[in-house]
Protein backbone atom coordinates (compact mmCIF):
# COMPACT_ATOMS: atom_id res chain seq x y z
CA UNK A 1 0.00 0.00 0.00
CA UNK A 2 1.18 3.46 -0.79
CA UNK A 3 -0.02 5.62 2.04
CA UNK A 4 -0.99 2.88 4.43
CA UNK A 5 2.13 1.30 5.79
CA UNK A 6 1.22 -1.19 8.44
CA UNK A 7 2.79 -0.68 11.82
CA UNK A 8 5.59 -3.04 12.77
CA UNK A 9 3.65 -4.58 15.66
CA UNK A 10 0.67 -5.07 13.39
CA UNK A 11 2.79 -6.93 10.90
CA UNK A 12 4.43 -9.12 13.53
CA UNK A 13 1.09 -10.03 15.09
CA UNK A 14 -0.36 -10.87 11.68
CA UNK A 15 2.70 -12.94 10.74
CA UNK A 16 2.58 -14.94 13.98
CA UNK A 17 -1.16 -15.54 13.71
CA UNK A 18 -0.85 -16.61 10.06
CA UNK A 19 1.94 -19.02 10.92
CA UNK A 20 -0.30 -20.53 13.58
CA UNK A 21 -3.11 -20.93 11.09
CA UNK A 22 -0.79 -22.62 8.60
CA UNK A 23 0.39 -24.95 11.35
CA UNK A 24 -3.25 -25.65 12.13
CA UNK A 25 -3.73 -26.77 8.53
CA UNK A 26 -0.48 -28.64 8.05
CA UNK A 27 0.20 -30.19 11.45
CA UNK A 28 -2.28 -33.09 11.33
CA UNK A 29 -0.90 -34.12 7.94
CA UNK A 30 2.77 -33.84 8.85
CA UNK A 31 2.08 -35.68 12.07
CA UNK A 32 0.56 -38.64 10.28
CA UNK A 33 3.44 -38.98 7.85
CA UNK A 34 6.06 -38.80 10.62
CA UNK A 35 4.16 -41.08 12.99
CA UNK A 36 3.67 -43.73 10.32
CA UNK A 37 7.44 -44.34 10.42
CA UNK A 38 7.66 -44.23 14.22
CA UNK A 39 8.04 -47.39 16.25
CA UNK A 40 5.69 -46.38 19.06
CA UNK A 41 2.46 -45.93 17.06
CA UNK A 42 1.42 -42.53 18.46
CA UNK A 43 1.66 -40.13 21.34
CA UNK A 44 5.27 -39.08 21.16
CA UNK A 45 6.48 -36.62 18.60
CA UNK A 46 8.99 -36.94 17.09
CA UNK A 47 9.15 -40.72 17.52
CA UNK A 48 12.01 -42.25 19.53
CA UNK A 49 12.95 -44.74 16.83
CA UNK A 50 11.95 -45.50 13.28
CA UNK A 51 10.40 -48.53 11.61
CA UNK A 52 8.60 -49.69 8.48
CA UNK A 53 6.65 -52.38 10.30
CA UNK A 54 3.27 -50.60 10.05
CA UNK A 55 3.59 -50.64 6.28
CA UNK A 56 4.63 -54.29 6.33
CA UNK A 57 1.57 -55.08 8.43
CA UNK A 58 -0.69 -53.63 5.74
CA UNK A 59 0.30 -56.31 3.29
CA UNK A 60 0.74 -59.19 5.76
CA UNK A 61 -1.33 -62.35 5.37
CA UNK A 62 -4.91 -62.01 6.55
CA UNK A 63 -4.82 -58.26 6.27
CA UNK A 64 -8.04 -56.69 4.98
CA UNK A 65 -6.28 -53.70 3.46
CA UNK A 66 -5.17 -55.09 0.07
CA UNK A 67 -8.74 -56.04 -0.87
CA UNK A 68 -10.02 -52.59 0.11
CA UNK A 69 -7.17 -50.95 -1.76
CA UNK A 70 -7.84 -52.85 -4.97
CA UNK A 71 -11.60 -52.21 -4.79
CA UNK A 72 -10.92 -48.50 -4.34
CA UNK A 73 -8.52 -48.49 -7.27
CA UNK A 74 -11.04 -50.30 -9.48
CA UNK A 75 -13.89 -47.97 -8.52
CA UNK A 76 -11.70 -44.90 -8.98
CA UNK A 77 -10.63 -46.06 -12.45
CA UNK A 78 -14.23 -46.65 -13.52
CA UNK A 79 -15.22 -43.27 -12.10
CA UNK A 80 -12.41 -41.61 -14.03
CA UNK A 81 -13.63 -43.09 -17.31
CA UNK A 82 -17.27 -42.16 -16.64
CA UNK A 83 -16.53 -38.65 -15.56
CA UNK A 84 -14.10 -37.97 -18.43
CA UNK A 85 -16.73 -39.01 -20.98
CA UNK A 86 -19.45 -36.97 -19.28
CA UNK A 87 -17.08 -34.08 -18.66
CA UNK A 88 -15.80 -33.85 -22.21
CA UNK A 89 -19.24 -33.95 -23.83
CA UNK A 90 -20.75 -31.59 -21.27
CA UNK A 91 -17.90 -29.10 -21.56
CA UNK A 92 -18.18 -29.18 -25.36
CA UNK A 93 -21.90 -28.51 -25.12
CA UNK A 94 -21.46 -25.69 -22.60
CA UNK A 95 -18.49 -23.98 -24.25
CA UNK A 96 -18.62 -24.83 -27.95
CA UNK A 97 -22.27 -24.75 -28.90
CA UNK A 98 -25.52 -22.93 -28.63
CA UNK A 99 -27.41 -24.66 -25.90
CA UNK A 100 -30.99 -23.90 -25.02
CA UNK A 101 -31.40 -23.62 -21.25
CA UNK A 102 -27.62 -23.37 -20.94
CA UNK A 103 -27.66 -21.94 -17.43
CA UNK A 104 -30.07 -24.64 -16.27
CA UNK A 105 -27.76 -27.35 -17.59
CA UNK A 106 -24.77 -25.64 -16.01
CA UNK A 107 -26.61 -25.34 -12.70
CA UNK A 108 -27.59 -29.03 -12.82
CA UNK A 109 -24.00 -30.07 -13.54
CA UNK A 110 -22.62 -28.12 -10.58
CA UNK A 111 -25.49 -28.88 -8.20
CA UNK A 112 -23.91 -32.07 -6.75
CA UNK A 113 -21.18 -29.90 -5.22
CA UNK A 114 -23.57 -27.98 -2.98
CA UNK A 115 -26.25 -30.57 -2.24
CA UNK A 116 -25.45 -32.29 1.07
CA UNK A 117 -23.66 -35.55 0.35
CA UNK A 118 -25.82 -37.38 2.82
CA UNK A 119 -28.86 -36.58 0.67
CA UNK A 120 -27.11 -37.82 -2.49
CA UNK A 121 -25.92 -40.93 -0.67
CA UNK A 122 -29.37 -41.67 0.73
CA UNK A 123 -30.95 -41.25 -2.70
CA UNK A 124 -28.41 -43.57 -4.31
CA UNK A 125 -28.94 -46.10 -1.54
CA UNK A 126 -32.68 -46.07 -2.25
CA UNK A 127 -31.90 -46.53 -5.94
CA UNK A 128 -29.39 -49.38 -5.66
CA UNK A 129 -30.74 -51.26 -2.66
CA UNK A 130 -33.85 -52.65 -4.44
CA UNK A 131 -31.63 -53.55 -7.42
CA UNK A 132 -29.42 -55.62 -5.09
CA UNK A 133 -26.42 -53.66 -6.31
CA UNK A 134 -24.99 -52.67 -2.94
CA UNK A 135 -21.29 -53.37 -2.82
CA UNK A 136 -20.93 -53.67 -6.58
CA UNK A 137 -18.02 -51.69 -8.03
CA UNK A 138 -20.29 -50.40 -10.81
CA UNK A 139 -22.80 -48.95 -8.35
CA UNK A 140 -19.99 -47.34 -6.35
CA UNK A 141 -18.44 -45.85 -9.48
CA UNK A 142 -21.80 -44.57 -10.75
CA UNK A 143 -22.30 -42.91 -7.38
CA UNK A 144 -18.84 -41.39 -7.24
CA UNK A 145 -19.26 -40.03 -10.75
CA UNK A 146 -22.06 -37.79 -9.47
CA UNK A 147 -19.42 -36.02 -7.35
CA UNK A 148 -16.50 -36.32 -9.75
CA UNK A 149 -18.19 -35.16 -12.96
CA UNK A 150 -18.82 -31.55 -11.85
CA UNK A 151 -15.11 -31.16 -11.17
CA UNK A 152 -14.21 -32.70 -14.53
CA UNK A 153 -16.71 -30.44 -16.30
CA UNK A 154 -15.28 -27.32 -14.66
CA UNK A 155 -11.69 -28.22 -15.53
CA UNK A 156 -12.56 -29.17 -19.12
CA UNK A 157 -14.68 -26.05 -19.63
CA UNK A 158 -11.70 -23.94 -18.63
CA UNK A 159 -9.53 -26.02 -20.97
CA UNK A 160 -11.84 -25.61 -23.96
CA UNK A 161 -12.19 -21.90 -23.30
CA UNK A 162 -8.42 -21.68 -23.46
CA UNK A 163 -8.27 -23.31 -26.92
CA UNK A 164 -8.45 -20.94 -29.85
CA UNK A 165 -11.64 -21.87 -31.68
CA UNK A 166 -10.22 -20.50 -34.92
CA UNK A 167 -7.80 -23.44 -35.06
CA UNK A 168 -10.78 -25.79 -35.23
CA UNK A 169 -12.52 -23.56 -37.76
CA UNK A 170 -9.39 -23.43 -39.89
CA UNK A 171 -9.12 -27.22 -39.95
CA UNK A 172 -12.81 -27.51 -40.78
CA UNK A 173 -12.51 -24.96 -43.59
CA UNK A 174 -9.76 -27.06 -45.12
CA UNK A 175 -12.08 -30.00 -45.29
CA UNK A 176 -11.55 -31.82 -42.03
CA UNK A 177 -14.70 -33.50 -40.74
CA UNK A 178 -16.00 -33.00 -37.24
CA UNK A 179 -14.39 -36.20 -35.98
CA UNK A 180 -11.06 -35.38 -37.57
CA UNK A 181 -11.09 -31.93 -36.02
CA UNK A 182 -11.85 -33.43 -32.62
CA UNK A 183 -9.17 -36.09 -32.96
CA UNK A 184 -6.39 -34.08 -34.57
CA UNK A 185 -6.93 -30.57 -33.21
CA UNK A 186 -9.10 -30.40 -30.10
CA UNK A 187 -8.02 -33.55 -28.29
CA UNK A 188 -4.25 -32.90 -28.46
CA UNK A 189 -4.74 -29.31 -27.32
CA UNK A 190 -7.09 -30.40 -24.54
CA UNK A 191 -4.81 -33.19 -23.36
CA UNK A 192 -3.33 -31.39 -20.32
CA UNK A 193 -6.83 -30.46 -19.15
CA UNK A 194 -8.07 -34.00 -19.71
CA UNK A 195 -5.20 -35.44 -17.70
CA UNK A 196 -5.92 -32.98 -14.90
CA UNK A 197 -9.62 -33.87 -15.02
CA UNK A 198 -8.76 -37.57 -14.93
CA UNK A 199 -6.45 -37.15 -11.94
CA UNK A 200 -8.99 -35.13 -9.97
CA UNK A 201 -11.77 -37.59 -10.79
CA UNK A 202 -9.60 -40.46 -9.63
CA UNK A 203 -8.68 -38.73 -6.37
CA UNK A 204 -12.28 -37.68 -5.72
CA UNK A 205 -13.41 -41.27 -6.02
CA UNK A 206 -10.44 -42.75 -4.20
CA UNK A 207 -11.00 -40.54 -1.15
CA UNK A 208 -14.80 -40.57 -1.25
CA UNK A 209 -16.28 -41.86 1.95
CA UNK A 210 -19.93 -41.10 2.50
CA UNK A 211 -21.49 -42.47 -0.67
CA UNK A 212 -19.23 -45.52 -0.38
CA UNK A 213 -20.45 -46.14 3.15
CA UNK A 214 -24.08 -46.17 2.01
CA UNK A 215 -23.35 -48.33 -1.03
CA UNK A 216 -20.94 -50.79 0.59
CA UNK A 217 -21.91 -54.25 1.67
CA UNK A 218 -20.39 -56.10 4.58
CA UNK A 219 -17.65 -57.80 2.61
CA UNK A 220 -16.97 -55.15 -0.01
CA UNK A 221 -15.60 -51.98 1.53
CA UNK A 222 -13.52 -49.27 -0.07
CA UNK A 223 -10.35 -48.05 1.57
CA UNK A 224 -11.91 -44.99 3.30
CA UNK A 225 -14.83 -47.07 4.59
CA UNK A 226 -12.43 -49.66 5.92
CA UNK A 227 -10.43 -46.90 7.62
CA UNK A 228 -13.57 -45.44 9.16
CA UNK A 229 -14.71 -48.83 10.43
CA UNK A 230 -11.37 -49.42 12.12
CA UNK A 231 -11.26 -45.90 13.56
CA UNK A 232 -14.70 -46.19 15.11
CA UNK A 233 -13.35 -48.73 17.52
CA UNK A 234 -9.79 -47.67 18.08
CA UNK A 235 -6.81 -45.82 16.75
CA UNK A 236 -4.72 -48.33 14.91
CA UNK A 237 -1.16 -47.93 13.65
CA UNK A 238 -2.05 -49.58 10.35
CA UNK A 239 -4.52 -46.74 9.77
CA UNK A 240 -1.62 -44.34 10.19
CA UNK A 241 0.25 -46.11 7.43
CA UNK A 242 -2.81 -46.15 5.13
CA UNK A 243 -3.33 -42.45 5.84
CA UNK A 244 0.25 -41.69 4.95
CA UNK A 245 -0.22 -43.61 1.70
CA UNK A 246 -3.33 -41.57 0.89
CA UNK A 247 -1.41 -38.36 1.61
CA UNK A 248 1.38 -39.51 -0.69
CA UNK A 249 -1.09 -40.34 -3.46
CA UNK A 250 -2.78 -36.94 -3.18
CA UNK A 251 0.53 -35.08 -3.21
CA UNK A 252 1.83 -37.07 -6.16
CA UNK A 253 -1.43 -36.38 -8.02
CA UNK A 254 -1.17 -32.64 -7.38
CA UNK A 255 2.45 -32.55 -8.49
CA UNK A 256 1.50 -34.49 -11.61
CA UNK A 257 -1.25 -32.00 -12.42
CA UNK A 258 1.15 -29.10 -11.94
CA UNK A 259 3.76 -30.72 -14.19
CA UNK A 260 1.24 -31.56 -16.91
CA UNK A 261 -0.08 -28.03 -16.88
CA UNK A 262 3.40 -26.59 -17.07
CA UNK A 263 4.33 -28.89 -19.98
CA UNK A 264 1.01 -28.19 -21.67
CA UNK A 265 1.98 -24.56 -21.79
CA UNK A 266 -1.13 -23.29 -20.07
CA UNK A 267 1.01 -21.27 -17.71
CA UNK A 268 -1.09 -18.24 -18.50
CA UNK A 269 -3.78 -19.38 -16.16
CA UNK A 270 -3.22 -18.27 -12.65
CA UNK A 271 -2.42 -20.61 -9.82
CA UNK A 272 -1.05 -24.07 -9.53
CA UNK A 273 -4.37 -25.83 -9.74
CA UNK A 274 -7.00 -25.56 -12.42
CA UNK A 275 -10.12 -25.23 -10.35
CA UNK A 276 -10.76 -25.13 -6.72
CA UNK A 277 -14.07 -26.59 -5.68
CA UNK A 278 -14.64 -23.43 -3.65
CA UNK A 279 -14.41 -21.37 -6.78
CA UNK A 280 -16.72 -23.78 -8.48
CA UNK A 281 -19.20 -23.33 -5.67
CA UNK A 282 -19.25 -19.60 -6.07
CA UNK A 283 -19.49 -20.01 -9.81
CA UNK A 284 -22.35 -22.42 -9.27
CA UNK A 285 -24.26 -19.95 -7.16
CA UNK A 286 -23.73 -17.37 -9.86
CA UNK A 287 -25.00 -19.58 -12.60
CA UNK A 288 -28.11 -20.87 -10.90
Amino acid at each position, binding site marked *: *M*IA*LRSTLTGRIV*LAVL*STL*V*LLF*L*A*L*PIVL*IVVTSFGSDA*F*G*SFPPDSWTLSWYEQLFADGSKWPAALSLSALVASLTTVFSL*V*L*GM*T*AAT*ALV*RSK*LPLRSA*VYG*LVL*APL*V*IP*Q*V*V*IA*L*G*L*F*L*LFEPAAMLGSPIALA*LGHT*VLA*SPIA*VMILMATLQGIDERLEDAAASMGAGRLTVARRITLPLAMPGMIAAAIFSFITSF*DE*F*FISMFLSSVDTTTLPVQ*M*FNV*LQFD*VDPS*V*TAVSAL*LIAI*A*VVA*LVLVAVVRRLGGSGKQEG*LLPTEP*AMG*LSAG*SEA*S
Partner: protein
Amino acid sequence: MAGTVLAPAPPAPGPGTPAASQGRLRRVLSERRTRFGLLNAAPVVVYLLVLFVYPIFSTLLLSLKGADGGWTLHWYANALQGSNLKVLLTTLRISAETSLLSLVIGFMLAAAVSRLKPLWAGLVMIIVIVPHFISALVRTYGWIILLGEHGVINNALTDLDVPGAPFQMLYNELGVVIGTTSVMLPYTVLLLYAVMKGIDRRLPAAAASMGAGRLTIFRRVYLPMVAPGLVNAGILSFILCLGYYLTPALMGGPKQTMVASLISEQVMKQSQWNGAAALGIILLFLTFAGLLLLRLIKVVGEAAKNRGTS
Protein backbone atom coordinates in the same frame (compact mmCIF):
# COMPACT_ATOMS: atom_id res chain seq x y z
CA MET B 1 -17.08 -3.58 -10.56
CA ALA B 2 -16.64 0.13 -10.03
CA GLY B 3 -13.35 0.02 -11.91
CA THR B 4 -14.94 -0.95 -15.21
CA VAL B 5 -16.72 2.39 -15.39
CA LEU B 6 -13.44 4.02 -16.29
CA ALA B 7 -12.36 1.26 -18.67
CA PRO B 8 -12.49 1.98 -22.42
CA ALA B 9 -15.64 0.83 -24.19
CA PRO B 10 -15.40 -2.67 -25.65
CA PRO B 11 -14.81 -2.80 -29.42
CA ALA B 12 -17.92 -2.84 -31.56
CA PRO B 13 -19.18 -6.38 -32.17
CA GLY B 14 -17.83 -6.68 -35.69
CA PRO B 15 -19.27 -5.30 -38.92
CA GLY B 16 -23.01 -5.54 -39.43
CA THR B 17 -24.52 -8.35 -41.44
CA PRO B 18 -26.66 -6.69 -44.05
CA ALA B 19 -27.04 -9.50 -46.54
CA ALA B 20 -30.12 -11.64 -46.03
CA SER B 21 -28.33 -14.70 -47.31
CA GLN B 22 -25.75 -14.33 -44.62
CA GLY B 23 -28.52 -14.12 -42.04
CA ARG B 24 -30.02 -17.32 -43.30
CA LEU B 25 -26.63 -19.03 -43.25
CA ARG B 26 -26.13 -17.90 -39.70
CA ARG B 27 -29.52 -19.28 -38.70
CA VAL B 28 -28.77 -22.66 -40.26
CA LEU B 29 -25.38 -22.65 -38.60
CA SER B 30 -26.93 -21.81 -35.28
CA GLU B 31 -29.38 -24.66 -35.64
CA ARG B 32 -26.54 -27.01 -36.37
CA ARG B 33 -24.73 -25.67 -33.38
CA THR B 34 -27.83 -26.13 -31.30
CA ARG B 35 -28.21 -29.74 -32.37
CA PHE B 36 -24.54 -30.31 -31.65
CA GLY B 37 -24.97 -28.78 -28.21
CA LEU B 38 -28.02 -30.86 -27.37
CA LEU B 39 -26.27 -34.02 -28.50
CA ASN B 40 -23.27 -33.29 -26.31
CA ALA B 41 -25.26 -32.15 -23.31
CA ALA B 42 -27.45 -35.26 -23.39
CA PRO B 43 -25.10 -37.72 -21.61
CA VAL B 44 -24.48 -35.59 -18.55
CA VAL B 45 -28.09 -34.45 -18.31
CA VAL B 46 -29.46 -37.98 -18.59
CA TYR B 47 -26.85 -39.24 -16.16
CA LEU B 48 -27.62 -36.63 -13.54
CA LEU B 49 -31.37 -36.98 -13.99
CA VAL B 50 -31.15 -40.73 -13.34
CA LEU B 51 -28.47 -40.82 -10.63
CA PHE B 52 -28.91 -37.46 -8.96
CA VAL B 53 -32.32 -35.85 -9.51
CA TYR B 54 -34.44 -39.00 -9.53
CA PRO B 55 -32.87 -40.43 -6.33
CA ILE B 56 -33.49 -37.15 -4.51
CA PHE B 57 -37.02 -37.08 -5.86
CA SER B 58 -37.67 -40.61 -4.65
CA THR B 59 -36.26 -39.61 -1.27
CA LEU B 60 -38.84 -36.83 -1.20
CA LEU B 61 -41.63 -39.27 -2.05
CA LEU B 62 -40.45 -41.72 0.58
CA SER B 63 -40.45 -39.00 3.21
CA LEU B 64 -44.12 -38.31 2.49
CA LYS B 65 -45.30 -41.91 2.47
CA GLY B 66 -47.18 -43.34 5.42
CA ALA B 67 -47.10 -46.89 6.69
CA ASP B 68 -50.50 -47.52 5.07
CA GLY B 69 -49.34 -46.29 1.68
CA GLY B 70 -51.11 -42.91 1.88
CA TRP B 71 -49.54 -39.46 2.10
CA THR B 72 -48.48 -38.14 5.45
CA LEU B 73 -46.38 -35.50 7.16
CA HIS B 74 -45.85 -37.86 10.06
CA TRP B 75 -42.12 -38.31 9.35
CA TYR B 76 -41.53 -34.58 9.30
CA ALA B 77 -43.42 -34.12 12.55
CA ASN B 78 -41.30 -36.93 13.93
CA ALA B 79 -38.10 -35.32 12.71
CA LEU B 80 -38.99 -32.00 14.31
CA GLN B 81 -39.59 -33.18 17.84
CA GLY B 82 -37.81 -34.77 20.78
CA SER B 83 -34.30 -36.08 20.29
CA ASN B 84 -34.46 -35.59 16.51
CA LEU B 85 -35.12 -31.89 16.92
CA LYS B 86 -32.23 -31.72 19.35
CA VAL B 87 -29.93 -33.23 16.71
CA LEU B 88 -31.18 -30.68 14.19
CA LEU B 89 -30.47 -27.80 16.57
CA THR B 90 -27.04 -29.26 17.38
CA THR B 91 -26.31 -29.36 13.66
CA LEU B 92 -27.27 -25.72 13.25
CA ARG B 93 -25.22 -24.74 16.33
CA ILE B 94 -22.06 -26.59 15.30
CA SER B 95 -22.36 -25.34 11.73
CA ALA B 96 -22.69 -21.76 12.98
CA GLU B 97 -19.72 -22.12 15.33
CA THR B 98 -17.59 -23.71 12.64
CA SER B 99 -18.41 -21.25 9.89
CA LEU B 100 -17.88 -18.29 12.23
CA LEU B 101 -14.51 -19.63 13.38
CA SER B 102 -13.32 -20.45 9.88
CA LEU B 103 -14.51 -17.02 8.74
CA VAL B 104 -12.46 -15.24 11.42
CA ILE B 105 -9.35 -17.37 10.90
CA GLY B 106 -9.77 -17.34 7.13
CA PHE B 107 -10.17 -13.55 7.08
CA MET B 108 -6.94 -13.14 9.03
CA LEU B 109 -4.94 -15.49 6.83
CA ALA B 110 -6.36 -14.13 3.58
CA ALA B 111 -5.63 -10.56 4.69
CA ALA B 112 -2.07 -11.50 5.53
CA VAL B 113 -1.54 -13.39 2.27
CA SER B 114 -2.96 -10.60 0.14
CA ARG B 115 -0.17 -8.32 1.44
CA LEU B 116 2.60 -10.79 0.62
CA LYS B 117 4.80 -10.76 -2.45
CA PRO B 118 3.47 -13.14 -5.16
CA LEU B 119 6.12 -15.81 -4.53
CA TRP B 120 5.38 -16.00 -0.81
CA ALA B 121 1.67 -15.75 -1.38
CA GLY B 122 1.92 -18.71 -3.76
CA LEU B 123 3.80 -20.78 -1.20
CA VAL B 124 1.28 -20.01 1.54
CA MET B 125 -1.62 -20.82 -0.76
CA ILE B 126 -0.02 -24.20 -1.48
CA ILE B 127 -0.11 -24.94 2.26
CA VAL B 128 -3.78 -23.94 2.24
CA ILE B 129 -4.78 -25.83 -0.90
CA VAL B 130 -2.85 -29.10 -0.62
CA PRO B 131 -4.65 -30.21 2.58
CA HIS B 132 -7.90 -29.54 0.78
CA PHE B 133 -7.10 -32.32 -1.66
CA ILE B 134 -6.12 -34.77 1.07
CA SER B 135 -8.95 -36.96 2.29
CA ALA B 136 -10.89 -35.36 5.14
CA LEU B 137 -10.84 -38.75 6.83
CA VAL B 138 -7.05 -38.67 6.92
CA ARG B 139 -6.97 -35.13 8.30
CA THR B 140 -9.53 -36.01 10.93
CA TYR B 141 -7.40 -38.96 11.94
CA GLY B 142 -4.46 -36.58 12.25
CA TRP B 143 -6.47 -34.46 14.68
CA ILE B 144 -7.40 -37.55 16.67
CA ILE B 145 -3.77 -38.53 17.27
CA LEU B 146 -2.98 -34.89 17.96
CA LEU B 147 -5.77 -34.14 20.44
CA GLY B 148 -6.36 -37.50 22.10
CA GLU B 149 -6.02 -38.06 25.83
CA HIS B 150 -2.60 -39.60 25.19
CA GLY B 151 -2.13 -37.62 22.01
CA VAL B 152 0.81 -35.49 21.05
CA ILE B 153 -0.47 -32.24 22.55
CA ASN B 154 -1.54 -33.72 25.85
CA ASN B 155 1.71 -35.66 26.20
CA ALA B 156 3.70 -32.51 25.59
CA LEU B 157 1.61 -30.55 28.09
CA THR B 158 1.94 -33.30 30.69
CA ASP B 159 5.70 -33.36 30.22
CA LEU B 160 5.75 -29.62 30.80
CA ASP B 161 3.69 -30.10 33.98
CA VAL B 162 0.95 -27.80 32.80
CA PRO B 163 -1.72 -27.80 35.52
CA GLY B 164 -4.88 -29.63 34.52
CA ALA B 165 -3.27 -31.64 31.71
CA PRO B 166 -4.27 -33.90 30.07
CA PHE B 167 -7.18 -31.87 28.75
CA GLN B 168 -10.27 -33.38 27.22
CA MET B 169 -10.15 -32.17 23.63
CA LEU B 170 -11.73 -35.12 21.87
CA TYR B 171 -15.27 -36.51 21.86
CA ASN B 172 -16.67 -33.11 22.78
CA GLU B 173 -17.73 -29.98 20.94
CA LEU B 174 -14.24 -28.49 21.05
CA GLY B 175 -12.87 -31.43 19.09
CA VAL B 176 -15.68 -31.32 16.53
CA VAL B 177 -15.30 -27.58 15.95
CA ILE B 178 -11.51 -27.81 15.63
CA GLY B 179 -11.69 -30.71 13.19
CA THR B 180 -14.53 -29.33 11.07
CA THR B 181 -12.98 -25.86 10.96
CA SER B 182 -9.77 -27.29 9.56
CA VAL B 183 -11.82 -28.96 6.81
CA MET B 184 -13.79 -25.79 5.96
CA LEU B 185 -10.90 -23.34 6.25
CA PRO B 186 -9.46 -23.78 2.72
CA TYR B 187 -12.84 -22.78 1.24
CA THR B 188 -13.07 -19.57 3.24
CA VAL B 189 -9.43 -18.63 2.67
CA LEU B 190 -9.75 -19.17 -1.09
CA LEU B 191 -12.98 -17.21 -1.39
CA LEU B 192 -11.78 -14.33 0.79
CA TYR B 193 -8.36 -14.22 -0.86
CA ALA B 194 -9.99 -13.89 -4.29
CA VAL B 195 -12.09 -10.95 -3.02
CA MET B 196 -9.20 -9.24 -1.25
CA LYS B 197 -6.90 -9.51 -4.24
CA GLY B 198 -9.48 -7.70 -6.32
CA ILE B 199 -9.62 -4.71 -4.01
CA ASP B 200 -8.36 -1.40 -5.32
CA ARG B 201 -5.58 -0.51 -2.91
CA ARG B 202 -5.80 3.14 -3.84
CA LEU B 203 -9.12 3.51 -2.08
CA PRO B 204 -7.82 2.97 1.49
CA ALA B 205 -4.85 5.14 0.57
CA ALA B 206 -7.20 7.87 -0.65
CA ALA B 207 -9.17 7.66 2.59
CA ALA B 208 -5.96 7.98 4.55
CA SER B 209 -4.87 10.99 2.54
CA MET B 210 -8.11 12.66 3.47
CA GLY B 211 -7.36 12.15 7.11
CA ALA B 212 -9.23 8.96 7.99
CA GLY B 213 -7.71 6.95 10.84
CA ARG B 214 -6.74 3.29 10.62
CA LEU B 215 -9.87 2.06 12.31
CA THR B 216 -12.11 4.29 10.24
CA ILE B 217 -10.49 3.08 7.03
CA PHE B 218 -10.95 -0.52 8.06
CA ARG B 219 -14.56 0.01 9.09
CA ARG B 220 -15.73 2.41 6.40
CA VAL B 221 -13.60 1.50 3.36
CA TYR B 222 -12.04 -1.97 3.65
CA LEU B 223 -14.84 -3.86 5.36
CA PRO B 224 -17.62 -2.74 2.97
CA MET B 225 -15.46 -3.90 0.06
CA VAL B 226 -14.82 -7.38 1.48
CA ALA B 227 -18.27 -7.74 3.06
CA PRO B 228 -19.80 -9.58 0.08
CA GLY B 229 -16.95 -12.09 0.20
CA LEU B 230 -17.37 -12.54 3.93
CA VAL B 231 -21.09 -13.21 3.61
CA ASN B 232 -20.49 -15.56 0.68
CA ALA B 233 -17.82 -17.55 2.48
CA GLY B 234 -19.80 -17.64 5.73
CA ILE B 235 -22.99 -18.95 4.17
CA LEU B 236 -21.15 -21.45 1.98
CA SER B 237 -19.18 -22.98 4.81
CA PHE B 238 -22.37 -23.06 6.90
CA ILE B 239 -24.15 -24.97 4.13
CA LEU B 240 -21.26 -27.38 3.67
CA CYS B 241 -21.17 -28.01 7.41
CA LEU B 242 -24.87 -28.83 7.66
CA GLY B 243 -24.55 -32.18 5.92
CA TYR B 244 -21.08 -32.98 7.16
CA TYR B 245 -20.60 -36.40 8.66
CA LEU B 246 -17.03 -37.58 9.05
CA THR B 247 -15.42 -35.28 11.59
CA PRO B 248 -18.41 -34.93 13.94
CA ALA B 249 -18.88 -38.70 13.85
CA LEU B 250 -15.25 -39.44 14.71
CA MET B 251 -14.36 -36.49 16.96
CA GLY B 252 -17.66 -35.82 18.70
CA GLY B 253 -19.43 -37.35 21.65
CA PRO B 254 -23.10 -38.29 21.95
CA LYS B 255 -23.99 -34.63 22.41
CA GLN B 256 -22.49 -33.71 19.04
CA THR B 257 -24.59 -36.04 16.89
CA MET B 258 -25.34 -34.22 13.65
CA VAL B 259 -28.12 -34.82 11.15
CA ALA B 260 -25.94 -36.79 8.76
CA SER B 261 -25.00 -39.20 11.56
CA LEU B 262 -28.63 -39.56 12.54
CA ILE B 263 -29.62 -40.33 8.96
CA SER B 264 -26.94 -42.96 8.51
CA GLU B 265 -27.87 -44.54 11.83
CA GLN B 266 -31.55 -44.68 10.87
CA VAL B 267 -30.70 -46.29 7.53
CA MET B 268 -27.97 -48.69 8.63
CA LYS B 269 -29.06 -49.74 12.09
CA GLN B 270 -32.80 -49.11 12.34
CA SER B 271 -33.94 -49.55 8.72
CA GLN B 272 -36.00 -46.44 9.35
CA TRP B 273 -35.90 -45.24 5.76
CA ASN B 274 -38.86 -42.88 5.84
CA GLY B 275 -37.57 -40.99 8.84
CA ALA B 276 -34.13 -40.76 7.30
CA ALA B 277 -35.66 -39.48 4.08
CA ALA B 278 -37.56 -36.74 5.94
CA LEU B 279 -34.36 -35.65 7.70
CA GLY B 280 -32.54 -35.60 4.36
CA ILE B 281 -35.23 -33.42 2.80
CA ILE B 282 -35.08 -31.03 5.76
CA LEU B 283 -31.34 -30.79 5.23
CA LEU B 284 -31.91 -30.16 1.54
CA PHE B 285 -34.44 -27.46 2.37
CA LEU B 286 -31.98 -25.72 4.70
CA THR B 287 -29.32 -25.87 1.98
CA PHE B 288 -31.68 -24.34 -0.58
CA ALA B 289 -32.60 -21.65 1.91
CA GLY B 290 -28.91 -20.82 2.29
CA LEU B 291 -28.33 -20.76 -1.47
CA LEU B 292 -31.39 -18.56 -1.94
CA LEU B 293 -30.05 -16.20 0.70
CA LEU B 294 -26.73 -16.04 -1.18
CA ARG B 295 -28.57 -15.20 -4.38
CA LEU B 296 -30.73 -12.60 -2.66
CA ILE B 297 -27.75 -10.89 -1.09
CA LYS B 298 -26.01 -10.82 -4.43
CA VAL B 299 -28.99 -9.26 -6.18
CA VAL B 300 -29.46 -6.68 -3.42
CA GLY B 301 -25.74 -5.93 -3.43
CA GLU B 302 -25.70 -5.40 -7.19
CA ALA B 303 -28.74 -3.16 -7.03
CA ALA B 304 -27.05 -1.08 -4.33
CA LYS B 305 -23.88 -0.89 -6.40
CA ASN B 306 -25.80 0.24 -9.48
CA ARG B 307 -27.50 2.95 -7.45
CA GLY B 308 -24.10 3.98 -6.18
CA THR B 309 -22.47 4.32 -9.60
CA SER B 310 -25.31 5.91 -11.53
